[in-house]
């Protein structure tokens, strides 16, 4: 119990927050690598997922790919990339991008697929182009699921970004590894609590975003029913 109190005292001590090794800098690094990894992964994953959801082709490939990626131990990918690319920030960033892709792909295709087929057919009958159908019907209707994909990806990445500190001096994981090396339980636990808090806060924020997006989907569906 006293270890917990010591760790809390360390977190609440203003002097832990300042400086180039302080909590503030570490939280910023952790967030930066998380956001960068998710956005970089979204560049190929979201358009590809939308395409798969819209055409209903290639779903099997994506499910198999997601399964295979889940089987890759992230620590292995990270250490392998670090041996190949050196100890900079690129190795963990690339590993995190690879980790984020399956959830984003799944969110995008599942979201687009979740649009009511009757609404899609109605849009097509009204003369909308395929591009318009995606933009004005399928994406708004599937927004909640799409954001859910971002939420799942962000959660995995923010958690795994902790491991980045194993090969490169980045993020909150550093406290865990320094603590492990010097048997400093206070530092280890303090770092653990900070990472867990950051993950929980991000998850809650994205849950709210997901709720809003689902609301948007419902309103879009209601509008189309009124218009019909």
């Amino acid at each position, binding site marked *: 119990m006293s270890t917990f109190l010591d760790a809390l005292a360390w977190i609440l001590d203003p002097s832990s927050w300042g400086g180039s090794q302080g909590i503030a800098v570490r939280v910023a690094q952790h967030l930066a690598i998380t956001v960068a990894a998710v956005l970089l992964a979204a560049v190929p994953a979201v358009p590809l997922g939308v395409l798969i959801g819209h055409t209903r082709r290639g779903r099997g490939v994506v499910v198999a790919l997601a399964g295979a990626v889940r*089987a890759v*131990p992230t620590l292995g990918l990270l250490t392998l990339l670090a041996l190949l690319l050196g100890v900079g920030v690129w190795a963990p960033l690339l590993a995190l991008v690879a980790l984020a892709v399956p959830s984003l792909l799944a969110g995008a295709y599942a979201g687009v697929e979740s649009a009511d087929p009757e609404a899609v057919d109605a849009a097509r009958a009204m003369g909308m182009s395929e591009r318009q159908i995606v933009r004005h019907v399928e994406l708004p209707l599937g927004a909640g699921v799409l954001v859910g*994909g971002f939420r799942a990806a962000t959660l995995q990445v923010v958690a795994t970004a902790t491991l980045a500190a194993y090969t490169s001096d980045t993020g909150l994981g550093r406290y865990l590894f320094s603590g492990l090396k010097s048997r400093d339980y206070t530092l280890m636990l303090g770092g653990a609590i900070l990472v867990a808090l950051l993950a929980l806060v991000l998850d809650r924020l994205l849950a709210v975003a997901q709720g809003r997006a689902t609301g948007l989907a419902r309103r879009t569906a209601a509008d189309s029913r009124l218009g019909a």
Partner: protein
Amino acid sequence: MTWLQNNAAWVVELAWRHLLLALPAIAASVVLAVALGRVAHRRPRLRQPVLALASVVYAVPALPLLIVVPLVLSIPLRSPLTLVVALTLYGTALLVGTATDAFDSVDGQVRDAATATGHGRSALFWRVDLPLSVPVLISGVRVITVSTVSLVTIGALVGISSLGTLLTDGFQRGITSEVAIGVGVTMALALALDALVVVLGRVLTPWQPRRRSVRAPAPPELVR
């Protein structure tokens, strides 16, 4: 490859340890998630709290969990039990949603018919609800099997030996082939267990058509 030839016995030993850490965690996760999924299905008032708790537990990153669990249970940091408990928490959190969906998927008319033919509460659970929930449940069990096997490697960071030891040892000594073999064998183990779960699912549901695969549900990470 020469590395593998010289260290084959060690790799086999680590793979065995890996399995001994992963299997109890997977089994415990299935039991706990089925129990909690059952509660969430039966009691609408508890459904939201149970699923919300699962999503909070799932949000806690793995490495911090490995440090917090031994402190809470007062067991040594390097104890294999630490890893099994942490992986069970994860596996359960990830599977509860699917387990709830699995019980939801059981046809109400079939349950009514079972009640009408004299099945009591426990017979209804063991002979109707549980078997009929297997097809949906199996999809979630496959996911936690693969993710648990891959997560066991994290234990190497705190000194719990498994195939993850090849990753940390290979990285520290700069032996790329050691790390690559660690990744490869872990993946092979995960996919082999996954195939085993698929076979188990088929054996448990002989009434399901073999050829036509059931439409894969959305990944459980998304159903939270």
